[in-house]
């Protein structure tokens, strides 16, 4: 360890800071959680898997249930009927909308809220207050500071609106799969959801509201993140790492996929 470097180790976190150049030279973090499903599902009736695997998570559990259904369809050589596949797809679509909405605007949003920025980057906060938002005609917030203020947890206008919208997407999910996030109507080879006109209409009216909200959310995100990239040089390096993404194969097209 040289005099210009400081190392700090914690379980799962490693940082190397170059104080002379005022730079984070290296930063690594890792987290792993042993879930254990592969162990305690052993010897259980495989048909129970969708009901149990969803309990892995309180936010994304239904993806695991869907995976369990796909896995069994392949193992048993069975397929979900076409309409059932669309019900699963609409449920998953609602889940993705829910996840992105909650994550981006309620969980990540806190990092960009007035309470946080004022304390951690007072200079950025005063700059935000005096920067006009380029897309204000689309989202209604005049300055970046107004957006940052609206992201304050529980009191900010946009934070509360986002919370309402994530609730709406959970309702959409419940229409298709009964319970969010532990689906009650998913089975290997089909769904228990009774497909009626009213079911899809109820989904569509909520989707329309969500699409309307997105017309505001996307230009708002553009304004917010573009501002931070400009206000904090090097900020675009945050989170840079080896990209490792896996797609678990959601949204099967029943005309193309027979689960073999």
């Amino acid at each position, binding site marked *: 360890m040289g005099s210009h470097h400081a190392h700090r180790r914690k379980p799962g976190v490693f940082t190397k800071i170059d104080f002379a150049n005022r730079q984070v030279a290296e930063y690594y973090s890792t987290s792993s959680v042993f879930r254990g499903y592969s162990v305690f599902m052993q010897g259980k009736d495989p048909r129970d898997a969708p009901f149990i695997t969803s309990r892995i998570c309180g936010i994304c559990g239904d993806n695991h249930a869907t995976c369990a259904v796909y896995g069994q369809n392949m193992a048993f050589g069975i397929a979900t009927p076409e309409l059932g596949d669309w019900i699963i797809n609409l449920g998953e679509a609602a889940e993705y909308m829910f996840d992105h909405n909650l994550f981006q605007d309620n969980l990540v949003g806190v990092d960009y809220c007035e309470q946080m920025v004022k304390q951690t980057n007072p200079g950025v906060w005063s700059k935000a207050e005096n920067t006009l938002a380029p897309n204000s005609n689309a989202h209604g917030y005049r300055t970046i500071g107004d957006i940052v203020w609206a992201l304050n947890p529980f009191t900010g206008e946009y934070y509360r609106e986002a919370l309402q919208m994530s609730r709406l997407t959970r309702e959409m999910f*419940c229409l298709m799969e009964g*319970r969010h996030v532990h689906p*009650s109507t998913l*089975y290997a080879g089909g769904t*228990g959801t*009774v497909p009626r006109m009213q079911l899809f209409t109820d989904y569509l009216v909520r989707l329309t509201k969500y699409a309307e909200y997105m017309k505001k959310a996307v230009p708002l995100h553009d304004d917010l993140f573009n501002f931070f990239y400009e206000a904090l040089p090097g900020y675009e390096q945050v989170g840079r790492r080896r990209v490792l993404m896996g797609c678990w194969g959601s949204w099967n097209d029943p005309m193309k996929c027979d689960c073999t």
Partner: protein
Amino acid sequence: MAIRKTVHEGCDRAGYYEQGDFAHEYGSPKCLVKIGCWGPVVNCNVTKRGWMRGIGGCPNVGGICIACTMPGFPDKFMPFMDEPPGAHLSAGGIGGYGKVIRTLRAVTNNTANKEPKWRHTGRQLSTGYQPKTY
């Protein structure tokens, strides 16, 4: 037990049970007891309140009750997708009674669905209202 009422007591499919009319495949709107619903013996109000804002739920929207509010869940109630022990006897017992009731109700329902004689065309207005008292 926090909730005294059972899933079955609040279930909008319980009428099918009473008439001995059971689902034999998932996706049916009828009572799910024979394909793995624990509802009759589980304490939970999900069938009354839905999952959120009255939407979704379990047996009333096509999902078998897996007894997730009960002590001993999940092991005590596995395998979920088989008829729960005891249900064979009670659901079987209601079969004969339910069939008779269903037949009788079909007769009355048919009568109830007929237009009454006093609703007719022409200038004369008649009524079926015949008070017996006052």
